[in-house]
């Protein structure tokens, strides 16, 4: 049997170091380092890196991470979902409608909301699969449909577009704290007492530490990232996700159940959006028709900054998480640094462009195009 040469004389050498460096997350890592360096230099004494400041950009980043994980897996599976933002608004409103307007027990409201949203996610996926339409169009339709209902329903029921009182309704519920609570209070109390982090100076919380626990939103972000990462890299389902996004037809011919994979990723995205919404309404106590506006873009941006390919088949959850971190740190950091807020968008656009150009370069190196 003919044996190909071990070395191909037509390939110029690339160093081992360069090889090791080149991975999907590289863009995200470089970006994270750059962003932190920047703010350490320009906003160090603004409180951005004190306990409260860290918690602030930490929680904003965690929010982005939650939706970015869903968007990332879905994007790797070759689709994307523009209805994430509307889904966030819709899910929050459903909780308010069930839990406050209809006064069901909160755990029931939460579970029903999850069921409804997962079904909408599945419907999204089902339509995409059955009609073969681009997910851009299908989910764009749902962007409008869900937002329309989010405005229409409370307006018809309560003639307002905001429904409050969720925190009161959730009082004593067993499920609600899993989304709205905080953990680690004793540790932070100790840190506060020991003077390591600041404490309130007056009011009815005098003496308590300014940061009194890790919000469940952060925990959820962590869980989802670990789950997504393990699913993608360590399970056979993960291989199917890559395959479905890389080339659905080939994957199908190789026996990958592409339709199920895509539909379940749409559902997972809906799940992440619902987690986001539930955490938000539990923390803030009200649902409004304006929640989640443009969050779909923010999720996609985070994922793309994190090195995933818009056309599917390539990306990493860790990268998406780093993308979300960059996004969160830049957004809050610009406030800390006192930059005129309308310029935030300009920065965002430029960072996005820079990140994708870098990521494209990295990907070309990996696939050997360059």
């Amino acid at each position, binding site marked *: 049997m003919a044996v190909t040469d071990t070395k191909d004389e037509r390939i110029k050498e690339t160093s081992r170091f360069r090889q090791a460096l080149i991975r999907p997350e590289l863009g995200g890592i470089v970006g994270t380092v750059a962003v932190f360096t920047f703010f350490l230099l320009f906003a160090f004494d603004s409180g951005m890196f004190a306990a409260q400041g860290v918690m*602030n950009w930490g929680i*904003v980043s965690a929010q982005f991470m939650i939706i970015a994980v869903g968007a990332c897996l879905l994007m790797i599976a070759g689709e994307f979902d523009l209805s994430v933002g509307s889904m966030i608004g819709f899910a929050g409103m459903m909780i308010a409608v069930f839990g406050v307007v209809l006064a069901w027990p909160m755990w029931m409201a939460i579970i029903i909301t999850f069921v409804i949203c997962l079904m909408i996610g599945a419907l999204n996926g089902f339509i995409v699969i059955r009609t073969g339409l681009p997910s851009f169009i299908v989910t764009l339709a749902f962007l409008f449909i869900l937002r329309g209902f989010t405005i229409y329903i409370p307006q018809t029921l309560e003639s307002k577009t*905001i429904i409050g009182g969720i925190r009161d309704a959730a009082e004593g519920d067993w499920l609600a704290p899993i989304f709205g609570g905080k953990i680690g209070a004793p540790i932070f109390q100790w840190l506060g007492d020991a003077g390591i982090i600041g404490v309130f*100076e*007056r009011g009815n919380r005098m003496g308590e530490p*300014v940061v009194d626990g890790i919000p469940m939103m952060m925990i959820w972000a962590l869980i989802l990232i670990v789950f997504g990462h393990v699913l993608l890299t360590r399970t056979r389902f993960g291989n199917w996700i890559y395959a479905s996004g890389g080339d659905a037809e080939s994957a199908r011919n190789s026996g990958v159940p592409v339709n199920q994979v895509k539909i379940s990723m749409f559902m997972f995205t809906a799940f992440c959006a619902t987690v986001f919404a539930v955490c938000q309404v539990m923390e803030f106590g*009200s649902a*409004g028709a304006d929640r989640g*506006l443009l969050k779909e873009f923010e999720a996609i941006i985070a994922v793309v900054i994190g090195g995933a390919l818009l056309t599917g088949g390539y990306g990493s959850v860790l990268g998406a998480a780093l993308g979300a971190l960059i996004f969160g740190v830049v957004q809050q950091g610009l406030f800390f640094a006192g930059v005129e*807020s309308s310029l935030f968008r300009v920065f965002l656009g430029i960072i996005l462009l820079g990140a994708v150009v870098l990521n494209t370069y990295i990907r070309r190196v990996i696939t050997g195009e360059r």
Partner: protein
Amino acid sequence: DDLTYILVSHAPDSDTWWNTIKNGIALAGDQVGVSVEYRNPPTGDIADMARIIEQAAASSPDGIITTLADFDVLQGPITAAVDQGIDVIIMNTGTPEQAREVGALMYVGQPEYDAGFAAGQRAAGEGVTKFLCVNHAIQQPTVGERCRGYADGLGIELGDAMMDSGTDPAEIKNKVLAYLSANPDVDGILTLGPVSADPTIAALQENGMAGDIHFGTFDLGEEIVKGIKDGTINWGIDQQPFLQAYMPVVILANWDRYGVLPGNNINSGPGFVTKDGLAKVEEFAGEFR
């Protein structure tokens, strides 16, 4: 001393009315000699606004001036900021009671519902029986309160009188035209700011009902002032955003420097601006008015 105050609003970037606020704090900052910053959630998402208040608190300013667009959402972060030792003044939306509840020093502004209610009462006196409320920011809960107040002030059901008009001027104009031609018995219009008022003026000029139909609006702007002048608009409700921005900065600075504080809340509105005494309004519309 180097005092820093941060004003946090609930308005999306695109909302042009808040510009007066920005100018108000900038001017006050200059005059009083403190540094001021303006922050807002880019999309108007109030949950994002809560994060911004937390962020503002984390950067330890001397005071925060903020709106209470959604009491449920903002109560936590504002209370935390107050407890942390930061002075807070509530401006624009919210009510004096809510301001007290979150521990703010005072409230400067015009409670939305009350302003709408006052407008409704006045319109009722001027003979309005069926109205259209043009809402260009349906997703923002606070603005809609004005419509509810107006309906209650008139003593009629809101029903479907509140229109989700979007922000595109041509669409607003034509939606108003469509609504008016489909509902010829409408005899009053309420717009909620320049974004909806300007195209509505154009619409009324186009269908000839300008000056014929009762037209009230919230907030001022160049076109609104012109409309008031030529009789298209009966009155504009001026909540004097300039004061809402300017006063808190001055009050906070004096509080921090000399420990003096007015004993009461300040109602910056509702004031009805009519044809009389428009000169100054005209000069500074969109900038300080």
